[in-house]
């Protein structure tokens, strides 16, 4: 470990550097960028989920006052295809154009673009475009899409099968032969709509051969790369800026049609163009998440020992493959299902299917919530069958702390872990022992009370690059950072990560501050501008930013520190080994009164007239960091719920979680990430779910029909942490962005099912709305009569 033994800023609740501008309205989000002479783009979207486009008549639209351009898919083919960055073996990729040319494959698929002087004119003109559709049979359900005779979404592929992805280990037949108990459960992860609070937006201008494009993205460098390649521009002529980005959760982890279109149109029309998504439009045209159905079978002994897991999964990818979609139900789901448990035999096969629905890709947790939900539900079902405490079934199967590094049955290596302390702390926080008394009290009120546990291991970092490549990920998993110390001593960090709420400006400043011996207040962190950052930044997703991008910052800061020490030693006429860098001073150990200021050293680096022999002038370092392994955070979440016996309404009465993300840089931010993640996971468990009718119409098409949790739906969260450092990186950090989402969904569902278990209820599919629970309670009571 190269980190200082007693870091001053790492591990402290430093106030966020982002906040002053965000609490005063001074932050600039993409839609706040107002360019002179801007024209507005509107897209005409198919009302049909599946329809051949016979003819598009744009004549009337073109005559509408204020209209600048009306273009159809054939005329826009110059924008090229939308990218997919992951290819799993045997994958049948889809041709995905920004504007559909031959047929519309989901309700919301764009079929024409209008550009006008005002938004109103663009909308009026869009209404005048007459599209002659030939409606085709529709398939919405992924399992049905794989049946013979199903409507084919992409005829050239011959079927709707995207991939068949097996992961196997151990002797699964023996496991089921030896089993004293087998439990089977069909598990559904319903389709979710991410609902970042900021709708997507893109605006661009093309001046002097250079395209500047502001966009709501988690991956500005990938947008730069694809826009440059597709539009035939040098990468040096495409500047992508992700200014303030109002949440992402995976929904902005794409190169979207609108980014290519706005770039293309501003270039060809010679004036700035802007597109801002309306929320209802976003429900159709921004990626969805989850939508996975699996049949889970567990083989076990009556003492709770797990012998094997056999799973058959069907994943709905929607109408087209999106950027990371092939990796979600496969790499990020199949490999991590065993979680914290020793599982001797494992056999999963995941099939992906095209359907006439909005494309599905990464949504917070991306594969890992699905994996953890499957594992944690089947463990509870097993515990119920054998009459054992669910906490003890988990404990019995935990990988013991002396077994690390541990090779899982799915073929990955956990470097570190210690699962029982997190479980025990969470059980204590939840007063697990005292629960039955509370259940009895609720019963006296006519209510049902339950407690649910979830223990998880997740996979973060999404690097190293070579491992990514072996798995089919088409781009490295490294991250970049540049640290520039100006002559006067002010410090700038340029990071390849692209935060949208995670507080990287603060955490990265803390990391660099400890290395450079200055205050985080003296460090500025800049991100999201591809002309400022190092040549490539991979971006922010998969809880990778700290474990990869934060380490790049740390390493760049160490390089700068080394040069500061060398210059300091030269100026102080001392050995570098004796030089101390702290509190903005550089001095010889034991002689702080003869210190140089940090700014004296940086000035010397640029004056360059008194440097050690052979030293380059300047004080700047760039690092591309590629980790040696993924990281594996873990934890235990416990939800306690009370269900109104008359209405079926669920209230979360108590929520306790103990997570281990390794070393924490800023505990305030860590807890904030957990709060938000837990809320989203509870949203999936209790409230959220996209609903299509059989014609492929999205019935949950706005925030009126799709319930994003409000403050009244959620409790306060009681959080604790254990700290098990990873040796994968020099700070021992693992990642916390998705843990809350991963841990909370099964905890909440297990609690509800536990509450209803006295009625003989074994499982209800999410979301566990009051209506579903009321029906289940009624059915159970009537069945009993």
């Amino acid at each position: 470990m190269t980190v200082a033994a007693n870091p001053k800023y790492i591990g402290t609740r430093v106030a966020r550097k982002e906040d002053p501008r965000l609490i005063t309205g001074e932050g600039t989000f993409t839609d706040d960028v107002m360019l002179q002479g801007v024209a507005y783009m509107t897209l005409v979207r198919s009302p049909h989920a599946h329809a051949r486009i016979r003819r598009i008549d744009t004549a009337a639209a073109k005559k509408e006052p204020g209209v600048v351009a009306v273009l159809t898919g054939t005329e826009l083919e110059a924008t090229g295809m939308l990218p997919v960055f992951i290819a799993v073996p045997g994958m049948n990729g889809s041709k995905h154009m920004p504007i559909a040319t031959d047929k519309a494959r989901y309700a919301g698929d764009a079929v024409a673009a209008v550009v006008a002087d005002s938004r109103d004119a663009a909308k009026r003109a869009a209404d005048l475009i007459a599209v002659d559709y030939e409606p085709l049979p529709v398939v919405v359900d992924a399992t049905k899409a794989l049946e013979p005779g199903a409507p084919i979404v992409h005829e050239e592929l011959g079927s709707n099968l995207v991939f068949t992805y097996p992961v196997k280990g151990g002797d699964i037949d023996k496991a089921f032969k030896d089993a004293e108990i087998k439990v089977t459960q069909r598990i559904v992860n319903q389709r979710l709509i991410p609902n970042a609070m900021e709708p997507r937006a893109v605006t661009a201008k093309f001046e002097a051969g250079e395209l500047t494009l502001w966009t709501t993205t988690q991956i500005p460098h990938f947008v730069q790369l694809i826009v440059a390649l597709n539009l035939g521009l040098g990468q040096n002529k495409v500047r992508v800026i992700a200014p303030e980005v109002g949440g992402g959760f995976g929904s902005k982890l794409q190169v979207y049609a609108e980014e290519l279109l706005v770039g293309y149109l501003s270039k060809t029309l010679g004036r700035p163009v802007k597109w801002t998504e309306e929320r209802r439009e976003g429900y159709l045209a921004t990626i969805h998440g989850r939508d996975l159905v699996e049949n889970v079978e567990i083989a076990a002994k009556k003492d709770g020992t797990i012998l094997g897991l056999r799973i058959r999964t069907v994943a709905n990818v929607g109408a087209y493959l999106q950027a990371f979609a092939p990796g979600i139900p496969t790499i990020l789901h199949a490999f991590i299902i065993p979680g914290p448990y020793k599982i001797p035999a494992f056999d999963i096969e995941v099939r992906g299917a095209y359907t006439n629905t909005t494309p599905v890709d990464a949504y917070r947790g991306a594969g890992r919530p699905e994996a953890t939900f499957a594992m944690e539900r089947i463990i509870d079902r097993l515990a119920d069958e054998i009459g054992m405490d669910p906490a003890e079934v988990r404990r019995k199967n935990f990988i013991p702390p002396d077994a690390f590094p541990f090779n899982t049955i799915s073929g990955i290596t956990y470097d570190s872990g210690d699962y029982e302390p997190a479980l025990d702390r969470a059980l204590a926080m939840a007063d697990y022992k005292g629960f039955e008394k509370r259940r009895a009290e609720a019963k006296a009120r006519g209510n049902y009370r339950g407690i649910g546990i979830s223990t998880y291991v997740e996979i973060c970092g999404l690097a190293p690059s070579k491992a990514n490549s072996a798995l089919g990920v088409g781009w490295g998993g490294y991250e970049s950072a540049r640290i520039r110390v100006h002559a006067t001593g002010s410090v700038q960090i340029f990071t390849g990560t692209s935060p949208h709420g995670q507080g990287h400006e603060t955490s990265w400043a803390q990391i660099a501050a400890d290395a450079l011996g200055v205050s985080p207040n003296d460090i500025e962190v800049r991100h999201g501008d591809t002309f400022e950052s190092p040549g490539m930044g991979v971006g922010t997703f998969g809880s990778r930013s700290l474990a990869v991008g934060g380490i790049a910052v740390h390493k760049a800061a160490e390089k700068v520190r080394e040069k500061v020490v060398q210059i300091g030693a030269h100026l102080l006429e001392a050995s570098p080994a004796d030089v101390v860098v702290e509190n903005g001073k550089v001095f010889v150990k034991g002689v702080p009164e003869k210190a140089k200021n940090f700014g004296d050293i940086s000035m010397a680096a640029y004056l360059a007239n008194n440097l050690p022999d052979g030293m380059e002038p300047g004080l700047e370092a760039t690092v591309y960091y590629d980790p040696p392994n993924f990281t594996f955070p873990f934890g235990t979440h416990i939800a306690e719920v009370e269900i109104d016996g008359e209405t079926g309404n669920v209230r979360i009465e108590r929520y306790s979680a103990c997570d281990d993300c390794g070393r924490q840089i800023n505990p305030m931010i860590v807890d904030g990430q957990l709060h938000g993640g837990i809320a989203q996971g509870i949203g999936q468990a209790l409230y959220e779910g996209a609903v299509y009718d059989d014609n492929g119409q999205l019935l949950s098409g706005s925030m009126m029909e799709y319930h994003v949790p409000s403050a009244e739906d959620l409790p306060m969260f009681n959080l604790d942490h254990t700290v098990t450092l990873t040796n994968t990186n020099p700070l021992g950090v693992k990642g916390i962005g998705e843990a809350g989402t991963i841990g909370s969904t099964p905890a909440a569902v297990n609690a509800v099912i536990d509450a209803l278990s006295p009625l003989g209820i074994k499982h209800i599919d999410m979301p566990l709305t009051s209506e579903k629970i009321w029906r289940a309670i009624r059915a159970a009571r009537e069945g009993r009569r």
Partner: protein
Amino acid sequence: MSHTVTVTVNGTSYSREIEPTLLLVEFLRETLALTGTHVGCDTSQCGACTVLVDGRATKACTMLAVQADGATVVTVEGLAKNGDLHPIQRAFAKEHGLQCGFCTPGLMITAVDLLERNASPSDAEIRHAIEGNLCRCTGYHNIVNAIRTASTEMRQAASGEAKIAAEVQP
């Protein structure tokens, strides 16, 4: 047919010729370039556009600008006075009540309205008051803490006690 409206926003009176279909939020964002007020949905669910209209929290996406003729509007840009942050602003930063910051202006405005009407709200009252303002990042935990902290500070200030120290750098 355009109309002339006169609206006082953050203490300044503006007279503008506008179309009758212009929403108040568009008037603020586009006519006056006050982009701190955000648009997060089109069904008045999310509350990102909340501003004070004559002292009451109002979703500016559900009100026409012409309806605000003669009204006094306060947006997030008007919360701080002479460089001094409003207690709700300090509290949101202190309690980590914001992450991406998109919903934050609307939530702070709603909280100001609440604290005007109820100086000492319970957590349940806070949650009820902000039920029409959605946040996807924070799970509301720290927003509730922030509003409670602000209420404490405002009561202390009202009773002449010392302000809690501001932790936000200017």
